[in-house]
């Protein structure tokens, strides 16, 4: 009786737990060729996980096993949507606050509006079906959430996703734009940070936008970089270079010195030497070139002084000396080096010299602390060696005395004359 009661409770529950019938997947998954692929991919799709099915995009009746009914126009079947219609098709749900609230209440619903402002969207509206639509970036039939590490728009995969088209010389030929962005990006400090696991490091979409993707205009480059490099942008905006760089062709702003996709870790080689970017405008011997050389000398000098102090302190630390106070202080020195690099963006030597001066004072102070600790270590060891020597002599003397005592066979030790 009890079993019957449990069974009566379980059967309706099990029936409810069954996934809704989907004749599209049932039929297509046993077919051969490319028509089978969507049915296999759909298992990993975020829409499937949320209870949606093929019919929600393609129309038709998924409850019917009869193909003429399941794919009938009367049931709204549209088949493969036209490429130009894809953004609107996705926006039917993703642009509806009421619909999205059921699944992702916090997700934005303006993707289509942004897309229409993008280079992709404008070209698609003008009849160019070569450009990217939703499915070119998010994939189709196996669409994953953007935070899913396997999603093509996950930060670690996005550069490759954009590069699929933008690195394709054949595809880009008619637009006359470069195809080396991905190649350069993969040499950049941003890609290096991303690879190390810093998912906040910028990818293509961080600077160009995602749905509203377009190249930053000249006047907005500093604003794009400044959205992360806030203080640098503030100093640059007030600098003598701002109006000059803003009028530059080919980008302007930060990219005049740092380039755009292949941004390297900045070093003083940007200021002086054969790869100096300052030399692109400031010829050797001019005041600008001399100032750049002076700045490089200050930065290199402070860097070398801090490294020397750090090496001495590490040696003293490894020798067991207490130098933690100086090590903490050395951190302030390194901070001044970073502040000097930041202040360089004022392009005012006097502004940069303040942290350089403060950093050098700390480097010298900590170097002295390290050298004092090493000297103290030497003194202690010399003292130990001397006392060890006398202890050794005493031990040997006692040992000799004991031997003489044992040789005499008496308990009497003759006094030393």
């Amino acid at each position: 009786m009890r079993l019957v009661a449990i069974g009566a409770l379980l059967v309706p529950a099990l029936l409810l737990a069954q996934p809704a019938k989907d004749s599209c997947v049932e039929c297509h998954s046993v077919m051969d060729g490319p028509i089978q692929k969507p049915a296999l991919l759909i298992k990993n799709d975020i829409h499937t996980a949320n209870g949606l099915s093929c019919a929600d995009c393609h129309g038709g009746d998924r409850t019917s096993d009869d193909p003429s009914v399941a794919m009938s126009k009367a049931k709204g079947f549209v088949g493969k949507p036209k490429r130009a219609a894809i953004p609107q098709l996705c926006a039917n749900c993703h642009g509806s606050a009421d619909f999205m609230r059921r699944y992702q209440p916090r997700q934005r619903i303006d993707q289509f509006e942004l897309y229409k402002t993008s280079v992709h969207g404008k070209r698609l509206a003008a009849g160019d079906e070569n450009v990217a639509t939703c499915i070119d970036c998010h994939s189709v039939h196996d669409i994953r959430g953007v935070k899913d590490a396997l999603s093509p728009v996950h930060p670690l995969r996005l550069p490759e996703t954009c590069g699929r088209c933008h690195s394709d010389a054949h595809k880009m030929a008619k637009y006359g734009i470069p195809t080396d962005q991905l190649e350069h990006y993969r040499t950049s400090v941003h890609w290096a940070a991303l690879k190390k696991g810093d998912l906040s490091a910028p990818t293509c979409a961080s600077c160009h936008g995602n749905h509203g993707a377009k190249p930053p205009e000249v006047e907005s480059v500093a604003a794009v970089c400044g959205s992360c490099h806030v203080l640098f942008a503030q100093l640059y905006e007030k600098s003598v270079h701002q109006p000059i760089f803003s009028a530059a062709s080919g980008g302007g702003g930060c990219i005049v010195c740092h380039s755009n996709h292949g941004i390297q870790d900045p070093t003083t080689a940007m200021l002086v030497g054969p790869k100096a970017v300052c030399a692109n405008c400031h010829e050797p011997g001019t005041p600008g070139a001399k100032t750049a050389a002076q700045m490089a000398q200050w930065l290199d000098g402070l860097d070398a002084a801090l490294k020397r102090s750090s090496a001495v302190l590490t040696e003293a630390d490894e020798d067991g000396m207490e130098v933690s106070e100086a090590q903490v202080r050395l951190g302030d020195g390194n901070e001044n080096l970073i502040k000097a690099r930041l202040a360089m963006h004022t392009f005012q030597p006097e502004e940069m010299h303040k942290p350089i001066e403060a950093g050098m004072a700390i480097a010298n102070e900590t170097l002295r602390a390290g050298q004092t600790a090493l000297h103290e270590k030497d003194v202690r060891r010399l003292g130990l060696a001397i006392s060890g020597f006398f202890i050794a002599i005493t031990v040997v003397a006692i040992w000799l005395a004991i031997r003489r005592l044992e040789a005499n066979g008496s308990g009497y030790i003759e006094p030393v004359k």
Partner: protein
Amino acid sequence: MLASIASFLYPVLKFLNPPLITEAAVNEVVAGKVQDLKPNSGKIIKFGNKPALLVRVSDTEWKAFSAVCTHLNCTVQYRDSTEQIWCACHNGTYDLNGKVVSGPPPNPLTEYAVNVRGDEVIISRRA
């Protein structure tokens, strides 16, 4: 005899030429007296060979973090006007749980435990 000499000389020589290891990490420090820090203020203290930031949030609530910014290792500080932790180098900000609020820091600050024993404030590494 040789064994006796060796047992005597070995520790002396090892002291004169020690292995290249640094001091063991400090696990606990006395950060100061309770009355030294007003509510809504912070101070930098030495925690081993690194700086730490002690924040007195209110009369009874204390917080402590590694004061080393996770971006480029600058020393962070407490800003009473925003009640946040701020790095002067690149304008990174953290909240009072050590989580990044804005700016370039890639990771949160390491949080330490704070205990008040009598009138002393003790900071220690969390297990």
